[in-house]
């Protein structure tokens, strides 16, 4: 296997590892750091794919990822938890071993799901599609198991990272317009989530999303 193929595999493996680390991380501050690391790995893999396939616009996508997901979004999230005063918040996660086992089951499911597609593809990145799917599913799982609004949003952003990785690995990136659109959506989305956080806290006096279940008209 070529060196770039090996590098992409290693980066994909690191991405999967970060997804698991996010699943079992209790501190919100560390979650944001992990999210930033995920961005670093993602942009690095985009650069490797761009170099090995000679697709010039992927360089742009990599730079955009690095700017947005390593610097801007983590900084906004950091400011948010600072303003919300939940910087040192520790979430009570019950039974991490069980969550990890469910995560492993999800990974097996994702790998099986992607296997027929990978078998047909001839690209250097073919084996990473399963990992990208697994990252999306793990981020889903994280959103389900978390109760604090901030960690749910980080789970959502991590899911978007997984989708972007899937796009890069399966089709060598999306068209530039789509990519720019998604980047803007994520940025605006984070701003809106930030405003939501303050509203949630004002209404319920906490950031626990379980309180939202009471929001129905009797």
């Amino acid at each position, binding site marked *: *296997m070529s060196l770039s193929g*090996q*590098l992409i*595999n*290693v980066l*994909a*493996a*690191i991405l*999967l*590892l970060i997804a*698991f680390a996010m699943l*079992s991380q209790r501190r919100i501050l560390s979650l944001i750091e992990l999210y930033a690391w995920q961005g670093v790995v993602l942009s690095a893999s985009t650069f490797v794919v761009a170099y090995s396939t000679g697709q010039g616009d992927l360089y742009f996508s990599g730079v955009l990822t690095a700017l947005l997901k390593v610097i801007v979004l983590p900084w906004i999230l950091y400011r948010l938890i600072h303003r919300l005063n939940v910087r040192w918040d520790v979430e009570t996660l019950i039974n*991490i*071993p069980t969550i*990890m*086992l469910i*995560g*492993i089951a999800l*990974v*097996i499911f994702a*790998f099986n799901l992607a*296997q027929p597609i*990978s*078998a047909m593809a001839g690209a250097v990145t073919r*084996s990473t599609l*399963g*990992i990208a799917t697994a990252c999306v599913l793990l981020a889903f799982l994280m959103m389900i198991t978390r109760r604090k609004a901030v960690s749910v949003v980080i789970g959502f952003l991590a899911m978007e990272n997984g989708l972007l990785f899937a796009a890069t690995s399966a089709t060598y990136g999306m068209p530039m317009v789509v990519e720019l659109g998604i980047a803007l959506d994520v940025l605006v989305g984070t701003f809106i989530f930030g405003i939501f956080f303050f509203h949630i806290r004002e209404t319920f006096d906490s950031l626990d999303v379980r309180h939202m279940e009471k929001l129905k008209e009797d």
Partner: protein
Amino acid sequence: MTAAGALYQLVQSLLVVAAAPLLVGWVNACRAWLQNRSAPSLLQPYRMLRKLFHKDAALAENTSWVFRFAPYVIFGCMWLAAAIVPVLATDLPFATAADVIALVGIFAVARVFISLAAMDVGTAFGTLGARREMLIGALAEPALLIVFFNLSLISQSTSLTTIVETLARREFGLYPSLAFAAVAFLMVLLAENARIPVDNPATHLELTMVHEALILEYSARHLALIEWASAIKLFAYFAIGIAFFLPWGIAEAGDWGALPLAIVAVVAKLVVAGAGLALLEAVSAKMRIFRVPEFVATAFMLATLGLLLQYVFEV
């Protein structure tokens, strides 16, 4: 079986038993240096063993034969484990006695006996230690098995010597699955050998001890055998880690000319690995006993991920 192979098997069997306390001495010395203390002599573990062998054994009143029998079983298990792991060369005639799965079983037999012996005396500490040991063991064992399955999948064999030969011949490259397996193995090593994030063998603090609680009632030659066995266990784990994850320089079957180089390589690797273990212990804090399942579950998760990645990348 060649005569040279049989001779080498004999030499290695004696060598691991003789060298294991030296490794423990080296790790302890490194730990002392890192803690700004002056280190004890490298030969200190030998002196301790000699002292213990010269004492009279005191047995508690209620002990049965299990208590007296256990140290010999534990020592025998660890000796067998260390004797069949390729340390210097892969030409080991006795290595067919156990493959990687049976190797995990040998460690399990030792664990069962030390726990039985601890419960046999009937003290609260012994039972407490035995339960904790079983808790850690029950979680660490599957993780260790999955690490070994990782390597078996690469080499298409569960035999120790075949795995090491395949890995040593493999071309140099980036193997994420092997890296995951190596980290998982390191975590299992820490958990199984009562090292700091999981257990601190240097203290006798009631609430935290695991290994020390098990052997609290032992004295004299029984204690010496158990301490020696745990030194051999550490050596065996180091040897497994080196043979599987850093096999370069090992002498392959029939190639006895490579032996001097293999000796230098193994000694260098052991020295570095021992210092690394001491460093790891110096920088990490001991965790609560109820966090240990998470630690070991992480090792299991890493090993399983390695296995799955292996499956994805090699297809």
